[in-house]
């Protein structure tokens, strides 16, 4: 297997996870990591070049692939720079909060002829990948309904909420991607109800913490997403896809598989606490898939269009909430379609 040399921009929480995963991955050599806000005293050790200057990664001729794990506002600029430097790109979601900006970046990537994968890690979760496989195999027949429950264990700090772009583009964006991924279909129209029930501070910051979103898909199927910023019992991540021949359901995953029986009742385990625990394996598998697509010169399994579409659906949901009506996604998805209409 050909070894690919990689670099990482951003050494925050997700950057560190990706770095540690790459250090253990066959066929990849993590050469450098850059982050202006990290002193790198304890980590990552002498084998890896650590720098405060992103240019040290972008200008390194040996580095073939770059992982962009910096804060969201810098994703698009770094993606453009990496593309111009001829490097393949793995970018955390979202590429940008403005679809026009995302389109511009996708055009730059296309012109540069490099590969771009977006960090929709849930597609690579073994459980959800099995759900998709069952659909592809025809095990549940034609998809009629996709239902997703996605609840975080605890509400984020208000500062995070304020820079997040809002719940639909920050949190639900993963669920919109799952709806597209599982159904193999586009979201045509979206309607959202939202509420502030967890933390009034989130409401004061102009966001919501609870939502139910319904969608009509281009293949005629319907979809529902239930979100909450706080499920006190743990990270609640469940999916059900229902079709003409039956349904398939993915339950929460737990740290262990015990059931405790006592006079007080039958007690099983809480879900894994949060996304780092629940989706641990998906972070490894998504990068393996990224490097395979470089090695074998294939399209990455979650590309720029997927990043754009999930964002556009998120923005449509936001608009639906503000205007109190269903919103057609195509009007936002392509400026050309708007002109034709």
């Amino acid at each position, binding site marked *: 297997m050909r070894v690919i040399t990689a670099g990482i921009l951003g050494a925050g929480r997700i950057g560190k996870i990706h770095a540690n995963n790459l250090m253990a991955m066959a066929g990849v050599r993590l050469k450098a990591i850059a982050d202006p806000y990290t002193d790198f005293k304890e980590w990552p050790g002498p084998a890896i070049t650590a720098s405060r200057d992103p240019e040290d990664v972008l200008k390194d001729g040996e580095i073939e692939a770059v992982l962009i794990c910096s804060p969201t506002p810098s994703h698009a600029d770094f993606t453009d720079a990496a593309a111009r430097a001829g490097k393949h790109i793995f970018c955390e979601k979202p590429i940008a909060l403005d679809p026009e900006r995302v389109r511009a970046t996708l055009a730059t990537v296309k012109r540069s002829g490099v590969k771009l994968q977006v960090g929709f890690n849930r597609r690579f979760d073994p459980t959800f990948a099995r759900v998709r496989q069952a659909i592809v195999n025809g095990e549940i027949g*034609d998809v009629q*309904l996709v239902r997703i429950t996605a609840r975080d264990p605890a509400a984020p700090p208000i500062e995070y909420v304020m820079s997040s772009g809002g719940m639909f583009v920050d949190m639900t964006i993963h669920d919109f991607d799952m709806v597209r991924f599982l159904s193999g279909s586009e979201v045509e129209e979206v309607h959202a109800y939202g*509420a502030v029930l967890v933390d009034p501070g989130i409401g004061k910051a102009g966001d919501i913490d*609870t939502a139910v979103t319904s969608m009509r898909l281009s293949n005629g199927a319907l979809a529902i997403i239930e979100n909450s910023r706080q499920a006190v019992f743990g990270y609640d991540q469940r999916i059900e896809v229902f079709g003409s021949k039956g349904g398939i359901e993915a339950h929460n995953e737990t740290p262990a598989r015990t059931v405790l029986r006592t006079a007080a009742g039958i007690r099983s385990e809480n879900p894994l606490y949060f996304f780092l625990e629940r989706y641990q394996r998906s972070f490894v598998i998504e990068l393996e898939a990224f490097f395979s697509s470089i090695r074998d010169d294939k399209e990455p399994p979650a590309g720029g269009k997927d990043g754009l579409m999930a964002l556009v659906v998120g923005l449509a949901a936001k608009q639906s909430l503000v205007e109190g009506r*269903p919103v057609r996604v195509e009007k936002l998805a392509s400026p050309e379609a708007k002109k034709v209409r």
Partner: protein
Amino acid sequence: MTPTTVAVIGAGRIGRMHAENLVRAVPGANVKAVVSPRVDAAWADTLGIPVRTAEVDRVLNDPEVEAVIITAPSGRHVELIRRAAAAGKHIFCEKPVAFEPGLIEQAQAAVAAAGVKLQVGFNRRFDPGLLRMWMAVRAGEVGEIHQVRVTNRDPKAPPVDFVKRSGGLFFDFAIHDFDTMRFLSGSEIVELYALGAVLVDPEIGRAGDIDTAVITLRLADGALGVIDCSRQTNYGYDQRFEVFGSKGSIFVDNTTPTTVVSSSKGGVVADRPHETFVERYREAFIAELSAFVAAVRDGSPVRVGAEDALAAVKTAGAARTSHLENRPVRLSEGLQQTSGGKRQ
């Protein structure tokens, strides 16, 4: 305890089931008569029901009959309620009482004027699982309610002839879900948005109805709700409920005929859910009649009445409007002219 003497009006599938439950499983009930143009005499013999008649007046004029169970075709419900109320009989009426809010209000007025009880057949309120959930929610086990979810899916799509006279999916099928939403949340639905589709059987679409729906809604206490409906699962009657709140969540799963799990190379296999509502809600159907008979005997209020039927039908009307006009509908706006019962 003096038995309460009742008559069952209508001897279709539900009528026969109620009669059998009253005779075999409801203590303190005495089924004296069954009213139907065609009564199976052997069946009535088995149950020991002495009076079989095609004449409603025969039971309404019988002073021994204290209460009637109305399971005649839905189009006759309101007329029968008014006659029974005028005759001073307490009434249990199957859902839907009527498709039009105005007709339900007439029935409500007739019952109030006569001072008799009217219980409506929202059987799910008496299901042990849903009752346990209701008690847990009332006891604050989930804290403040944030989200309520109802999944309601039939095992097999009904014949198109049934669909044509059913009033449509929102009035015939989702009506139970609207009531369940109110029951579990203890709050009123203030606004909803309904998406409908024909994905199961194109014939249902040609008959002007839908077979798949997703209804999202806002409750008066601020919580949000989701209902999903399908006319056909192929794997049994799928009935699941979840209430999620500030302190956690509570879930009611499907029930199964047995609890057998068999494991083999092919996989780990458990029973499918019960096949029909008759099996799934067996205890609920008995409990609702037990509660009705007890209310008649003790003079206590019924647990589900005309106001609940009215609220559910108004919600169904709003859902139909939402589906047809593709917009969210506030319940307060749709009250002027709900020409309920027309097919969507």
